[in-house]
């Protein structure tokens, strides 16, 4: 494990990480990988986020969609848990609420594959401060 010794180390590391990790902010990412974030705070998990995440991974596998599924913290939409965010390269990320297995299939087949939106997507109602 490389230790961070100086602030410059950290900054360099940050730049490298941004290019390899943060595909959402670079829409023309060469790998064209879809990124899916499942809100996995206590509230989301209680509403079934873990099962949904597992199902998503299975379904993507089955449908042979190249996507990266990760967990993240609370998005704030407690009324619509489980919530997931789907970032398709070149498009604004979309948040889907009340996600169940049927909806996962719909998201894969209709949104990721065909660019169709689904009813009841959750509009982002906030701005978050962006990194430097």
């Amino acid at each position: 494990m490389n230790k961070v010794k100086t602030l410059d180390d950290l900054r360099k590391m940050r730049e490298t990480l941004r290019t390899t990790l943060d595909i959402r902010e670079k829409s023309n990412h060469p790998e064209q990988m879809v990124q899916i974030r499942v809100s996995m705070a206590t509230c989301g998990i209680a509403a079934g986020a873990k099962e949904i995440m597992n199902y998503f991974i299975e379904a993507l596998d089955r449908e042979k969609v190249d996507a990266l599924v990760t967990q993240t913290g609370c998005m704030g939409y407690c009324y619509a848990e489980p919530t997931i965010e789907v970032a398709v390269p070149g498009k604004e990320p979309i948040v889907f609420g009340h996600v169940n297995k049927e909806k996962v299939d719909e998201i894969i087949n209709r949104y990721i594959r065909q660019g169709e939106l689904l009813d009841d997507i959750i509009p982002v109602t906030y701005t978050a401060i962006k990194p430097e």
Partner: protein
Amino acid sequence: MAQYSSYILVCGGTGCRASQSELILENLKEAVEQHGLQDTVQVIRTGCFGFCEKGPVVKMVPDNTFYVQVKPSDAEEIVLEHLIKGRKVERLLYVDPETNEQVPDSKHIDFYKKQLRIALRNCGFINPENIDEYIARDGYVALGKALTEMTPESVIKEIMDSGLRGRGGGGFPTGLKWQITRKVQAPQKYVVCNADEGDPGAFMDRSILEGDPHSIVEAMAINGYCTGANKGLVYIRAEYPLAVERLRIAIRQAKEYGLLGENIFGTDFSFDINIRYGAGAFVCGEETALIHSMEGLRGEATVKPPFPSEHGYKGCPTNVNNVETYANVPVILLRGAKWFSSIGTEKSKGTKVFALAGKVNNVGLIEVPMGTTLREVIFGIGGGIKDGKKFKAVQTGGPSGGCLTAKHLDLPIDYDNLLAAGSMMGSGGMIVMDEDDCMVAMAKFYLDFTVEESCGKCAPCRIGNKRLHEILQKITSGNGTIEDLNMLRNLAGVIKDTALCGLGQTSPNPVLSTMDNFYDEYLAHVEEQRCPSHQCRELTQYFINPEKCKGCTLCARICPVNAITGDRKVPHVIDPQTCIRCGSCIEKCKFGAIYVH
């Protein structure tokens, strides 16, 4: 197959639906088809845009044009003008009330700056179990900057200048606290993170720890650098297993990267963090009680002074800050005090996270700049009151706070305004009540909690709150008198005046504020033995309207105490003596024949 290039998003939130958004949706779909655009334009219904006061709302994607107060009849024009001719329908654009100018797209609508995520900046964005994602979003740069480019004094000055105040509820200036701890000379000092979130309904600290644990680790290290502490302790309730787990992972990863431990960033500053578990006592959120609990002693408050800054954990100077406070720290160092203090009101800077709950459509975790009004929060972000009911009150500050009413709706939220209005910021619980809520019962509900959670050390809190609760019980069961109301007020005042710690001093607030704002409800309970909201069971009576009752016998069969009698096809009757007012009959009756009075 359809190849959509444009989308029309129609708000399907409760508020907009009430003003015909469903019809707008239909009309838009129709117009799209009429113009043959169905393969390139998709019309869909979305969740609430949180902009209900200007609803119904329609948003065009990808250009983000935002149409407000749309009527079903506007559908044709939107499709024709916007999609076919490529011109915006100007009369439907949002007009900024400040500048009086039309705002072409949602990105520029002021409203969406209403929710500004600073403390929650990474929640929902990064994988909290991966330090790399935190670093990619500037993680630990603030710590590096502080350690290698700034003196502890200059960091403290930055925090002081930012105007950051304690987010745990007290609102004490954070920089000042750090400075006091720094000034005390001692061989060993501690930095503590108070993650003993105890307000019923508040969960922002948990969400931050679950969504962005590294921000806390980083901020605590910065705090250690400033105050001269090399040990950090996170006091977290054991009921937060996921937060604990993610925090553990974060600490471990930070150690692996050398961002915690010896000689961080090659400097002579070393810092380590340990976790201490709380058993979930509300009073342990009070810093002296918290420290006693960490020491393995009974979690109860002690009189201040001495303050923990001088005499804290194991007698050493200890700086205690809340999770949300810490979450703001790295950003302040990265963006500067000036930027931070440009957000908020004169005396309350930055943003505040609220857990919006109760009778509001969009319950959730929100973060707004200080100075946002209650109206904007409840009717904007919150999407208004559920089921179109009337707003009655909002309780801020949890069981320590007070309730605010319609006359406070335009009050800009900050520490001082809330205090002046008889409530407090607290840790950020915000519970909205509608016309169906009885304010006396509400006060009793909060007292239930405080009576349970009092540590029992000082007499006014231990016995006084119990007696307050008993008087409220008497009133809500119809046995109260005017004299009880006087006694209630006197006792509440004395508890506030004499209790030892913050818990006791604020515990009568729900009683006092409801008495101030809803005295008529109290009067109705004691003078007429009537609960205007029909919430106090002992004061309500169930009746069957013989005109509506068809004698189907369903209610009689469902009644758990056999209080309902009547022959088939003959109107039934409820025996008030036997009835326990459980409400099962009302739920079951298909004819709306049963009513409460």
